[in-house]
């Protein structure tokens, strides 16, 4: 299943609800474009909701890292919400779990941007 992205705003935070796979050719480019679009528009608080992302590969991990660093360079923040077990597993193995701010609760995640 390819990646679908729905965007919503809540309390000054742009939430991207992602669903599907973030892999080479199946979502990593979509994610890159979505993040770049938000940052170019001046969004500073971006929350990636990954509760329906059931698969991520090394290319997808690279896109998450690129989103994180691109945001930092623009004084913006990209944080992660609701990791599935498989995505959490891959982030832990690659030590990226220590890089991102990761939340299980949306309200808590949104509050963290303030």
């Amino acid at each position: 299943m390819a990646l679908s992205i729905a965007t919503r705003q809540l309390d000054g935070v742009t939430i991207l609800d992602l669903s599907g796979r973030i892999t080479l050719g199946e979502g990593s480019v979509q994610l890159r474009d979505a993040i770049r679009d938000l940052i170019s528009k001046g969004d500073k608080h971006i929350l990636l909701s990954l509760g329906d992302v059931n698969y991520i590969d090394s290319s997808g991990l690279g896109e998450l890292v690129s989103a994180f660093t691109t945001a930092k360079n623009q004084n913006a923040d990209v944080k992660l919400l609701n990791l599935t077990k498989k995505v959490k597993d891959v982030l832990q193995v690659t030590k990226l779990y220590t890089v991102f701010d990761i939340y299980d609760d949306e309200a808590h995640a949104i509050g963290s941007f303030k």
Partner: protein
Amino acid sequence: MDSVAEVEAAAERLTQAAGLDEDESFRVAMAVREAAVNAVLHGNGYDPAKQIGASFENNGESLIITITDEGEGLDPDKIPDPLAQENLLRGTGRGIFLIRSFLDEVHFRQLHPGTELTLIKHLSPAGNDRDGQDQPQDLDTK
């Protein structure tokens, strides 16, 4: 990338037939997918004239998956450690690391031309479904 999806699906069939649980099946299939992506992109350089090969075997003790490409070869010792602090925020370079993390043995062999990657997952006695033991299967695909 159709060949990558084909190889990934074959790996999933192999792990499920061997009785691996969902987590282990995911890890093996993901490692195989990463190997196939590497073969297509880095090995063959996305050259449609070059093929990747894939074979899958359950010998009752291990799952043995072999992925080959027709590229210029790679030196696994020269791959930077993606866990090193200076590499942690790099956008690439995690594929081989994931393969090594998720499998019990990974062997590289230089072909002329190309690279052969042999991926081995040992089966625990409790998790080994002998009925799922397969004869070797080969996939040759572009």
